[in-house]
């Protein structure tokens, strides 16, 4: 589904963050991108979202070269990106409003676009019905994140891009939302790419883990016994630690 060919990206007047990077993601896979601060994991997500463009190389999604935000990719940011002046219901329906605004122009809105499910369905499914008329400032962090998820799912995406979406939440809420994300990916056959700096989260969510450092590596996560998970955790921790001491 996602193909990165010899991708290079750097901000002006700095060394490239990503250089000659190749990566492939199959449909329905759940990937966690792990790495320390400044390693380029958020930049990689923004490149996949079509909000940044590579200095060299090509990004292909579904066989098409990415030149702008793709209508079937949903991006969920760390601070949720909700409009403070819109209620939960209005925020959940925002993507559809944007599509109505342009009409089916094939550029901002796919031709013959029909949302599979109403935003109201997602508000109910994600337990937001009771706070639907409240503003983001009136609800909890977990509810805000659910609203961002509802807004994205209302557009029937096939690719979910998440940038440290649960980092500011308490442990219980975080675990609930991690489970919710995984079950939604399974039900809706979504491809997930989640950026995190927490090894536990990467192991909990990623069937594959991309450790983004000076020489990016992929780790398979078989999601089996506690022992294997522990070993994977230790391995990732060791790699991240050695990368940090090399810096």
């Amino acid at each position: 589904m996602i193909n990165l060919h010899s991708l290079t990206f750097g901000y002006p007047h700095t060394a490239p963050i990503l250089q000659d990077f190749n990566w492939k993601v199959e449909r329905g896979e759940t990937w966690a991108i792990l790495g320390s601060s400044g390693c380029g994991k958020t930049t990689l997500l923004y490149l996949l979202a079509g909000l940044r463009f590579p200095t060299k190389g090509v990004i292909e999604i579904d066989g098409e070269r990415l030149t702008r935000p793709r209508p079937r990719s949903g991006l969920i940011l760390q601070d949720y990106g909700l409009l403070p002046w819109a209620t939960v219901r209005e925020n959940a329906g925002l993507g559809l409003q944007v599509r109505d605004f342009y009409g089916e122009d094939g550029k901002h809105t796919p031709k013959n676009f029909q949302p599979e499910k109403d935003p109201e369905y997602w508000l109910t499914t994600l337990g937001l019905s009771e706070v639907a008329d409240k503003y983001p400032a009136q609800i909890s962090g977990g509810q805000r994140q659910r609203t961002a998820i509802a807004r994205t799912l209302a557009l029937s995406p096939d690719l979910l891009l998440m940038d440290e979406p649960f980092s500011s939440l308490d442990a219980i809420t975080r675990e609930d939302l991690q489970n919710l994300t995984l079950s939604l990916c399974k039900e809706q056959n979504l491809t997930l790419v989640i950026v995190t700096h927490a090894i536990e989260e990467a192991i909990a969510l990623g069937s594959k883990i991309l450790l983004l450092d000076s020489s990016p590596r992929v780790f398979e996560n078989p999601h089996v016994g506690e022992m294997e998970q522990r070993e994977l955790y230790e391995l990732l921790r060791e790699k991240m630690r050695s990368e940090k001491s090399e810096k």
Partner: protein
Amino acid sequence: MSIIGLGIGWQIVAMLVNRDILPAPWDVFVVFVDELDNGLVTHFLYSLWRVTAGMALSVLVAAPVGLAIGGSKRLDRIFSPIIYILYPIPKVVFVPVVLLFLGIGDVAKITLIFLILFFQILVLVRDQAAGLPPQLIQSLQSLGAGRRALFRFVYLPASLPAILTALRQSIGTAVAVLYITELFATKYGLGYYIYYNGSTLFNYPAMYAGVIAMSLLGLGMYYAVDWAERRLCKWKFVG
């Protein structure tokens, strides 16, 4: 309560001064009520029309320009120096020029109010639009929003509080400018009424009745902006 306090203060000063030029508040109030039937309402309505038209025109022109400049770093680089050169110039100096080009009717008066308010609203709206968190813009872009949708769904609603704040801050200036513009080439408006009664007829109670009417005009406008803010920016009053 504050109005009663103001009235008591006025009464004390009037008693201390004890001159025609500062009549007691009750005398002014009686004249004010009488004058309502003698044309004060007409003067009030003329002033209300001019100041409202000037303010509305300022918002209609300055808000989109401020949004466009605030939403584009390139436009900001081009236009900000021009704004900073023109903003501090006291626009009242343009009275002869405006009169020359636009005549002595309402258009010239409304244009002067517009000229003063335009820059205040423009700068506030531009700063608000430029200060929006990039995450907000990016999350909308990821939903497919291009420039037009960003203006409709982000920049415009985000700038509404700034527009209303600019309006609130401008009411005092607008009413002061209104007074100046109504000193010339008109027989209607509170500025004319105050000046005519104070400087030509020496009818000081009527002059103060005009001042009260002007205060009420400003007060009504403040309440109107507060009302609009509560209607349009409900999210600011929750939590």
